[in-house]
Structure formats: C-alpha cells, structure tokens
C-alpha cells in the first residue's frame, strides 16, 4: 500500500449525502463497462448545492466541461459524510473521478463500509474538524505511517485517527482480497 498520498483539496461541509455525491438519475450507467463508467466521474459530486461546492468560497465545480477526471483528489468533509443511500456508485464515482482519500470528521456507516470493502479510496477520520482549516485548491500530503495530514499550502500538520481494525481490509485491497488472505474464500 502506498504510504503517502499527495493531492489537491476539495472541501465540503456537513451531511454530504449520496444524492449530492451522485444524483439518482445518473445511477443507470454501467460500473463495469470501461467507457460507460466514465459518466460517473463526470457527474461525481454534481448534486452538491453550488454555495457548498468547494469551500470556503463555493461555486467551484468538482469536474469541469464534461471531464470524467477531477484535478481534486483529496476530499475534505465535515460530519456524517456520505449519509443516505447504500448506492456504491457514490464511492465509485469519486474514485472514477480520481479521488484517492477522504478526510472527514465522521462518516455515515454504509458509505464508510462501501469505501473500505470495495477498496475505492481510504476514508480517514480527522481528530479535529478540517473544513475550516483547509481551502479548496490547497496542496495536501497524507502520511499513512505517521497518521497525519499536512497542508503544504499553509505548512500545517494535523493528526488523523487510526484506521483501526479496517486497516487489514484496506491493506489487502478490498474485502475479497482480505477474505482470500485469511483463507475464507479460495485464492484465485
């Protein structure tokens, strides 16, 4: 597993629900077809109300001009990130758009579980609320060994909570690889 994740921040607020992450009308595309799945990147975070999109200023689109990849690869969130539906299209669309980590104050449980079990990206919890500490566009570095988040733009470092027991699934890659490692399902 990569021990350092570098990327540009995209900052959101509290209770970012799965309808904001990927509005239901877009849940019709294939997640497995290599071309069709790009639609998910294109519409990732497209339901976020404009004034909340890319804080503190807002009105910053996550992806531009119909592109399926975003220049922002680390999402900063507040409380209860990913609440609402069980749609795995939510973490999937973020991964397709290039997200490699989310750092939130807390998560809704299905979204958190889907992120880990599906191996889409690493959902970190910050010790302190980060939404007001980081601006959209800041350069960030996450150090997994030190369990820290550094804002290179402001030169400040923050503590992340331990990934706890899910670290084994994250390190394996997803729930299937974890189950193979532990002998629960036969190795491919």
């Amino acid at each position, binding site marked *: 597993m990569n021990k350092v994740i570098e990327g540009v921040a995209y900052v959101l607020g509290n209770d970012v629900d799965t309808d904001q992450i990927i509005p239901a*009308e877009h849940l019709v595309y294939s997640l*497995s077809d290599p071309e069709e799945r790009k639609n998910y990147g294109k519409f990732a975070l497209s339901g976020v109300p404009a004034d909340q999109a890319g804080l503190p200023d807002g009105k910053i689109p996550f992806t531009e001009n119909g592109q399926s990849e975003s220049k922002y690869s680390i999402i900063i969130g507040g409380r209860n990130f990913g609440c609402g539906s069980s749609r*795995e299209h939510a973490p999937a669309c973020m991964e397709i758009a290039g997200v490699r980590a989310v750092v939130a104050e807390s998560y809704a449980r299905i979204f958190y579980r889907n992120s880990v079990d599906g191996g889409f990206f690493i959902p970190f919890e910050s010790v302190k609320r980060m939404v007001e500490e980081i601006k959209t566009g800041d350069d960030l570095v996450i150090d997994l060994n030190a369990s820290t988040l550094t804002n290179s733009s402001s030169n400040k470092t923050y503590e992340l909570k331990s990934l706890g027991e899910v670290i084994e699934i994250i390190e394996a890659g997803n729930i299937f690889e974890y189950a193979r490692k532990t002998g629960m399902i036969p190795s491919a």
Partner: protein
Amino acid sequence: MGMTITEKILAAHAGKESVVPGDNIWVDVDVLMTHDVCGPGTFAIFKKQFGENAKVWDRDKVVIIPDHFIFTKDTHANRNIDILRQFVKEQSLPHYFDVGTDRYKGVCHLALAQEGFNRPGEVLFGTDSHTSTSGAFGMFSTGIGNTDAAFILGTGKLWVKVPESMCFEFTGTFPEHVMAKDVILNVIGDIGVDGATYRAMEWRGEAVMSLSMEERMTLCNMAIEAGGKNGIIEADEVTTNYVKQRTDAPYTIYKSDDDAQYFFKKTYNASEMEPIVAKPHSPDNKAKVSECVDVRLDRAYIGSCTGGKLTDFMAAARLLKGKKVQIDTFIVPATREVEQDLYKEKIGGETLVDIFKNAGAYLGDPSCAACLGGPQDTFGRAKDNQVVISTTNRNFPGRMGSKQSHVYLASPYTAAASALTGHITNPAEFIYN
C-alpha cells in the same frame, strides 16, 4: 449479561452463545435482496471475483425485486432490467419479480413483506439503505453496497460489527391524527441525522406495539435517516399473524433481555405526539405542523416504501373523500398489491381509487417513482423551484428531482390535509371537525 434482540439474532447467526457491541463477526445470511439500480453492479463484481460460471451460494435465498427506474424510456435503465433477467436465467433464480409480467411487485421493502421474505429472527441484507424496514418483523436487516452483496452471493456470509442498541419507548396511546411518520420524524429531529450512526434503533412500548405492521415498517424504514444500522421491533401476535398469511417458512422470535445494555434510552408519552414535518433539506429539520401553516405548496406526493402502503392511502382517502385537492397531488402505490387494494377497499361505499380520482389526484404505477427523482420522465418528479409536501423519507437537496425544489416530509394525513388547502395543514382540522 443480557442481550438485546439485535445482539441475540447476530449471535445466533454467527454460531456464538453471545456477542457484545463492537464485536466483528461473520454472520450467515438468510436473505439477500437486490434491485435494478444495484443488481447489475453486484452481479458484475460477483462474476469478476468468483468466476463467469460461478453459482450463487443458495438460489432460494436471493430475492431480486426491480422497483426503482421502471416506467421510463431511459435506455440505460431498461438495459439494467435486461441484465437482471439474464442473471436470473443463468442462475435459475426462483425469486425474481419481472417488470411487465404478473409477477411484477414494485417497491422492494414492502414486496419483501408481502411475499413472505420478512421472517422474525432472520438476517436480511439488501442493496438499499431502507432495507432497515424489515426490522419491523423482529429480524436484523440492513443496507449494503454492491461489493458486500457480491460477497454474500458467493459465500452466504458477511462481516458485521455488532451495533450498540438505542431504545425508544412510547407509553400510552398515539392521538388519532398522529401516524408512524410523525413519530419517526420527531425522533430523528431529536437525535439528528447522525444520532444513531452505527447503532440499532429498537422501538418498544405499548403505543408501538399497538401499531399495524405497515406503521411499524415506517418506523424501521427511517432508522437510516438517523444513521442507524438497523431498526427493530420485537415480533408479537400482530407480526406472526401477518407472516403466517404470507409464508409457511419457520421463524424464531427473539426478545431483548430485561438486563440488556442500551447505549441510550428514551421514553416518550405517545399521547403528547403531534404531526411533524421535516423542513428542507434534511430529515432532522423538525418542525411541528402547527409552526409551518404559512408554507404555500405547489404539489403533494403520497407514495414510497414509507408512505405508499395501504394504511397510508386509507389515511389520505379519509381526508380527501368528497373534497377537491387545491394543488397537483400524486398517488403512487408502493406495490401492485397496494394498487389492487385501492380498487377494493372502500370508505363510505366509495373505493379509494374513486376517492382519489374524484378529489382530482393523479394515480401512478407502483414503483419508487419520484421518491428519489429518477430519470427525467419519472411520474411526479419535482420541477424547478417547486415546494412539495411528500410522504417519502428523504428531502436532501435535489432528492426528488430538481435541485431547486423544496421538499417537506410529512405523514399521509398531513400531506392529504395540505393537498386540500394548498398550504401545510394540521390534519386534526379535518379529522376532528
């Protein structure tokens, strides 16, 4: 130490004498449910991980209920139904309820109950967050993503962290104009949209046990709106009467021990409950209906897993009978069975269908419809900056379609009363006058 009903069911399915909150356990799954939105992705992962020719762990335990994007011209949505059909054929799955056939049901959570898949003491997972609905039958049920569902398809098992339980007890009797929707919106307003995150919401007390199965389903349905892992109500005679009419399958009744440990306990006096709405744009944005009477409405929507059951339409019809709606009003039965009941059940000699039509409401086909917006041609989809009163379970920004729309969540009584006046209205005005 005593265990809660949730802990007992999980322990039994993990082959353990006891479990405590925080334990990570592997449980045996009794039923896996999926639908048209998450089925195709689930099947793709299953094939990738277990092989193109792999077979599901138990054909009899897989239930596939298309319900989300059904009556639409959207080619991708219709293609997804074809993917369900193909998988069902490849796997010879018996429990599939195909679109365009007599077997079509509609909204999965009510269809599970009506087709006998909700059985006390069992463990049910579904690729839909409102799978918590089934907890009304004294079973453990929760929503999962495609990956976890694919894992179950291949193994029949899933890892679960045993949740702490929260106990919500209602003593006494609910007033006649208060419905389960008011009760759950009240509780979500009290604890917040993350107030039950990772926890079980257990409902107790004589007022809860006086409710019908459909009303109990409404309580458990919206556990997820407080972040809950599951909602649960001990099975009683009301439960077993319902279940026995739907299935001959055996079941096990678990009850929480008197010395079970709860993370949180709150007792409400049922008689003090009032009609409640959740204002835009969050299910915990609670207000009394009496505080919102100035809110002008553009449309009313009565439908969904939480507001489209027969009980919900009996309530709405009671108020709409002999009157005219003042705003566009959409009636969407959750399932075909509910739809058929609308033609059979009568109030004062008039069928519910006639009551709704004569009141000027529009009747849609059974499905999730505009509860989650859906494709552009979805029945009842919110447009522009409309203000909607809805019996559905979520009012996140854009949830019912337009990002500019404003959705107030309410009971069927409140939605019907408001449809008659064009502004948010306390149903007591119609019920007691």
